[in-house]
């Protein structure tokens, strides 16, 4: 991609212009079956193996609404402090694309299930910013096109395309913000924090795993600039499918710089969709939207209106989990960590694993130490999120229990974790198989201590002479001899006792 785009520096852009953003987030619900048929939503199946007449749009097929999908939509709406429609309909959004089996998407138009809400997000420095929510509506996902033969994987230059309809009909909730104004230079940060907070909320509700890397959550960043001090919105660009938190921030930043460059030289912004490029954080022009595409929306005649009973909505409201932001603030106090550390824990995706590990009996600091240390490193190295590691919070708690009981020392504990991650079994099984118990056989230890003293007479003399700190060298020798399986504190005691010195 060798498109050069004129940019001005970020600071310069903000000197003259005020950014206004709109964020549209699509969340794939984690329902067992699709939105309008009984097909599985499991990821990773053989292409087109999870399809039926309905999600393939075969002639004569009809949709039936997934009740769990509606329930999830209402939960999301409630958690976003939205009003829940007493009566709403699905609508058909008509346009042709080969990965859309019916050539219309069953969506919602002017009657969304949830509307008029907000989400409070916390920025790095603790400032809370309120993002107003316009609406959240239900719709279905499209299939997936793979363009083959071109250099870029895009349709341009491809010799043919492959279509996989397994994704077609997977329930989506589209959450649209009202124009986000007043964020100023922090707009990109707000965008990122909003998507991050929304993700936490979705996960807390248990309605989706909201994995951006798996496309379960996708974000479009709409952005416009207006001269500082003015109120009228400028022309916006729509950057599509920005699929990581970092990218959301970068895309907003890039567009601010690009718009400013165009506007400051007297140019006009073209209303268009733009593609985001992960490699360099840039965007390039996609489809021009001058004569805005006409989707010919009309109420879906194959479905009856959705009219959630009020008692049900209230029941769902009562069952909502604690808001993630409030929860983080509570945990921060309970764990005694600072805002910055909590942010790191959040960014690492470690909150839930740590909470679960504590619930399984581990002390808070130990749980944090393992998930943010050894396990975070492993997750990084293997490119997996923490909660996808092949170790459970219960297993981590078991390791901390073994350490607390003196059965393992820190070094051995790390080896146990390593074993569990390598698929060697539970912590106890790894301990057994690898023979990782701390050597507590006094006879064996005493022999090792005697050998170490005999091999290091000079050091022994120093200790006898009162230089107790020299015992460290002998402890090291014993640990080496026992391949790390001794309890170092006990070894030191034995050495001092042998040499007749009080510790």
């Amino acid at each position: 991609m060798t498109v050069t785009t004129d940019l001005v520096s970020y600071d310069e852009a903000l000197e003259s212009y005020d950014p206004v953003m709109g964020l549209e987030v699509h969340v794939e619900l984690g329902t067992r079956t699709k939105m309008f048929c009984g097909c599985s939503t499991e990821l990773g199946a053989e292409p087109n193996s999870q399809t039926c007449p309905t999600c393939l749009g075969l002639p004569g097929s009809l949709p039936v609404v997934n009740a769990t999908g509606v329930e999830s939509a209402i939960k999301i709406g409630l958690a976003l402090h939205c009003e829940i429609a007493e009566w709403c309909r699905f609508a058909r959004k008509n346009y042709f694309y080969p990965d859309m089996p019916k050539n219309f998407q069953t969506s919602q138009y002017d009657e969304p299930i949830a509307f008029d809400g907000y989400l409070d997000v916390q920025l790095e420095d603790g400032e809370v910013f309120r993002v107003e929510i316009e609406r959240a509506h239900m719709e279905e996902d499209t299939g997936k096109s793979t363009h083959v033969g071109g250099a870029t994987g895009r349709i341009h230059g491809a010799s043919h395309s492959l279509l996989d309809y397994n994704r077609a009909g997977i329930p989506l909730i589209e959450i649209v913000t009202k124009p986000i104004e007043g964020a100023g230079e922090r707009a990109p940060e707000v965008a990122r924090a909003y998507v991050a907070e929304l993700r936490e909320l979705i996960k807390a509700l248990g309605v989706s795993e909201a994995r951006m890397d798996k496309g379960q959550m996708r974000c479009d960043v709409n952005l416009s600039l207006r001269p500082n001090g003015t109120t009228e919105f400028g022309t916006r660009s729509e950057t599509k499918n920005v699929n990581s938190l970092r990218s959301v921030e970068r895309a907003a930043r890039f567009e601010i710089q690009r718009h400013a460059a165009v506007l400051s030289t007297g140019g006009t912004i073209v209303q268009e969709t733009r593609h985001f490029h992960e490699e360099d954080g840039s965007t390039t022009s996609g489809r021009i939207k001058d004569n805005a595409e006409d989707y010919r929306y009309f109420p879906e005649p194959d479905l009856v209106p959705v009219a959630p009973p009020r008692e049900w909505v209230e029941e769902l409201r009562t069952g909502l989990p604690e808001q993630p932001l409030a929860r983080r603030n509570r945990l921060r106090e309970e764990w005694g960590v600072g805002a910055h550390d909590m942010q790191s824990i959040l960014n690492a995706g470690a909150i839930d694993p740590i909470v679960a590990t504590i619930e399984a009996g581990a002390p808070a600091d130990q749980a944090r130490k393992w998930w943010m240390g050894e396990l975070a490193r492993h997750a990084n190295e293997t490119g997996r999120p923490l909660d996808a590691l092949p170790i459970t919070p219960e297993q981590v708690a078991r390791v901390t229990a073994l350490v607390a009981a003196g059965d393992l020392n820190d070094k051995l504990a790390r080896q146990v974790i390593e074993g569990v991650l390598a698929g060697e079994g539970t912590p106890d099984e790894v301990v057994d198989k690898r023979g990782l118990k701390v050597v507590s056989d006094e006879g064996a230890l005493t022999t090792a201590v005697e050998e170490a003293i005999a091999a290091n007479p000079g050091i022994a003399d120093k200790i006898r002479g009162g230089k107790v700190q020299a015992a460290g060298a002998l402890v090291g020798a014993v640990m080496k001899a026992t391949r790390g399986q001794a309890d170092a504190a006990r070894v030191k005691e034995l050495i001092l006792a042998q040499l007749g010195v009080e510790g």
Partner: protein
Amino acid sequence: MSDHEKNQRIIRLTAAEIAGKIASGELTAVEVTEAHLARTGAVDEKVHAYLHLDREGALAQARAVDEKRARGEKLGPLAGVPLALKDIFTTTDMPTTVGSKILEGWIAPYDSTVTRKLKAADVVILGKTNMDEFAMGSSTENSAYGPTGNPWDLTRIPGGSGGGSSAALASFQAPLAMGTDTGGSIRQPAAVTGTVGVKPTYGGVSRYGMVAFSSSLDQGGPCARTVLDAALLHEAIAGHDPLDSTSIDAPVPPVVEAARNGSVAGMRVGVVKQFRGEGYQAGVLQRFDESVALLKELGAEIVELDCPSFTLGLSAYYLIAPSECSSNLARFDAMRYGLRVGDDGTRSAEDVTALTREAGFGAEVKRRIILGTYALSSGYYDAYYGSAQKVRTLITREFQQAFDQVDVIVSPTTPTTAFPIGERVDDPMAMYLMDLCTIPSNLAGNAAMSLPCGLAPEDNLPVGLQIIAPATKDDRLYKVGAAVEAAFVERWGHPLLEEAPSL
């Protein structure tokens, strides 16, 4: 008695009689099927009722019924009775073309709910009948596979869109047939062929597997030569279907019981002022007036009704039906099934879709897609689709007010008798007028029947009497229909169809 004579007698039996004779052992299902297949062999070259005949499948089904009886199993009320299935219901063992080139040879991977129910009832499906392409038309001339002749006069139309089904009944190729009615496609063919056709209440018969024309109007229903036969078929195919969200979740109205106990004594029968006037053939009005007089003789009270919005029905219909069809037919894009034109390895998917739709759809289908696409476009939606929906509401309300005063409404089914093939092909408006009296019931979603009420004196062609009942009161159609039928047969000395030429 020769085989030929025996067959001649079998094919003139009613469905109820056939079922009785099979159950009693007087006839075998195989004999019955063979008699009808022989009839088709003799006359269908002239009539062209069928698009596809399934000899082997039908005989196998018939044999299964005979074996069932031989094993002493109880047979259902239609076991072994042959049926002609409109080529709009999906079948796994025969092609489903909907009268269109775009689906030529397409074999559905699933049976429609109606097909499934017919098979479960041991009905013998002989084949698939001709129809206007995608059920768009009133003459069956819009079939991509050539027109069907009216058995009363092969140079005339058998009605449409279900002309194949009505012609199969009127030419004694089957005692039962299935139709679908979006604006009159069951009732109008019944009227012009001297047969009985019923459009059940919208939602009474599942639409699952019925290739959609206009989802909010389409309704499958029974076609037969007698009111009782229609009721027996109605009962077999009706009922709630979880695969069709718009299907009614309530017991099927007692249609068979009503058909066996015909009576109008003490009933209030409405006659709508707007269902006569300019464009109505004199002989049609004459037979209709005689029918009203007959109803009076039979003990009904006649009430004149004023329903001014009914005159807007045709216009509203020709906005709603094309709008929905423009969306329903978008799926025919050459990507997954059906015709594919121009895929030479160089053309884009978009071009292939365009070339396929150009080649695969007939003129009337294209006309309606274009009309509907226009009516739904932004800026026109309110004026067209929106206004049409308002008219629909008005018509529904006027029906409600009418049914506050009367039990049923009667009218001519069509303004004229069957017209010559080719007469109206270049005048869509003249063609559309055939559905003037039938359309209001589709817009309101209530139940309506057409049954023969004599021959128009000027052309000796059948005239249909339409009976309309409130939604979910389908049984009233049969109660009134059976009484009228019995009185007419008594007056004529035989069923009307006996006056049809022998072919």
